[in-house]
């Protein structure tokens, strides 16, 4: 195997702290990302064997699938939404939340009450489409890049599909969960070639 460092892509934002904690629990000495030396760096060296790549959450599976990173951490929702051809290695058991269909409070008790052609606003178009197709509900996906809660409030959509952790944001916006699509946690995953060629390192990491 080459002397190139094993590159781990981790997500900016909500899952960053948990990702760093998980890697520390797996035995990596994680550098301080807020230090003067590392601040704003997108590639952060860890030691002689590893380096971190700090990227947007939805981009982690893309970096890993293409081999630009050997390993990655992202929510299972993001991994499945990307449909990336990767190897899921370990459930890191943090960042627990649910991917849910949500609507205005009191408007729909279950998905069987949804309109005959349901408009769905979401940042998860593929998983949403799969869910509505599975349940035989005629639908139209409106792909947004954030603040999907505004969908039903502005009549842009009938419902939204979004991640729900505490439910606080829904409550504040007078929305509620109609159905749960899947439970989500963060996962460690690998590029298919790296999984096979960097196995001593990867095995050390996932078995520690």
């Amino acid at each position: 195997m080459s002397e190139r460092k094993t590159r781990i892509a981790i997500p900016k934002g909500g899952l960053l702290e948990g990702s760093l904690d998980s890697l520390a629990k797996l035995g990596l000495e994680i550098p301080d990302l807020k230090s003067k030396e590392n601040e704003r760096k997108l590639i952060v060296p860890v030691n002689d064997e590893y380096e971190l790549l700090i990227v947007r959450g939805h981009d982690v599976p893309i970096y890993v699938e293409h081999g630009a990173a050997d390993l990655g951490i992202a929510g299972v929702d993001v991994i499945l939404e990307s449909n990336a051809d990767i190897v899921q290695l370990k459930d890191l058991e943090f960042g627990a939340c649910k991917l849910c269909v949500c609507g205005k409070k009191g408007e729909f008790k279950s998905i069987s009450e949804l309109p005959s052609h349901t408009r769905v606003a979401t940042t998860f178009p593929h998983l949403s489409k799969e869910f509505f197709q599975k349940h035989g509900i005629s639908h139209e996906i409106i792909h947004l890049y954030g603040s999907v809660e505004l969908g039903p409030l502005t009549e842009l959509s009938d419902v939204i599909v979004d991640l729900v952790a505490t439910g606080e944001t829904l409550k504040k916006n007078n929305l509620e969960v109609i159905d749960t699509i899947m439970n989500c946690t963060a996962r460690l995953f690998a590029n298919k070639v790296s999984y096979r060629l960097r196995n001593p390192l990867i095995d050390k990491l996932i078995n520690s």
Partner: protein
Amino acid sequence: MSNAGLRTWMPEDVKKQKYVTSEMLNLYSNWGYQPISIPTLLDSKLFKKANFTSKWVEESKTFLVVDKDGSLLALRPDLTIPIAQAISSRYDKLSEPLRLYYSSSVFRHSGKSTDNSRKLLQTGVELIGAKASDNFSDFEILYLFKESAEQFKLQESYISITDSGIWRKAIELYPELGQEAYNLLAKGDLIAFKELVPEKHALRKLLLRDADNLKTLAEIEKALKLDLGYLKEILSTDSLKENLIFDPSLCPNLDYYTGIYFNLLIDGIGDMVAIGGRYDSLYQAFGKDFPAVGFAYYMPSFLKALQEQKLLSAAESKIGNLKAKSNWEETLKAAQENIKKGKSIAIK
């Protein structure tokens, strides 16, 4: 303007591609392989007939074109299947094995979730009419597979290899669990696989990763009550064993592969660069009982690897400037003198 996934290759890239392809085809030619060329447009029903369910050849990934009479034609999404059809319709029996090579593009709607490549140059070989045990046919194919890359002094390249009989036996021994375990590993879900298969179950051995290939092989043979003698021979043969990784967790398409299955992995290149194996039942779809084995190199990934390792300097040719003379005849004479000396020139 360029459409997504339909790349224009500029002169420098084409020269490199031609150099690499020609070295590979020379190798195959030296080993008795002959060229075959397949039409770009094919009857779309051909792929249904082969009952071949590889994700690459699913109809949804194939470009379809409507013929004048309303029937559907496919832009060839694969080469092995149309070659099988062509050979089956031409030969009733093969008195001796056929050795064929090709270098042609296939066309597919994006195969990868995050990639747009729609045209993919493949270079490869087919050895038709020889069983695994006939005259070392699997050894020959594997040697050519390896040599195709090694002749360029490629570093950090490895061949992961398995036998599709391993999964077949696993599913025969544990029909439901085996099939589900296969489906999970084929889609790369190691987490669900470990949840499904108890830690001490024989199927867990499929995750074995040991630097000693023969040790892994012995464990698999014991766990699944299998005799993998010829794979053992391959893994112990001096001319083949270097950089071979026996990997029983590989999931060959069981509708297609019947024996050995292998692919080329290069550290730093995220995709599989080349793939091959034995598909003895493919020709039965066309009414013939011809065993077959072969491989294909995906040239864009292979070229990328060679380029990254700076192994393509031989493809760089210099073009000298030739100042135009006062008349064409003199200019031509000067040009021909240079060309005779092996120099390329451009008149300025």
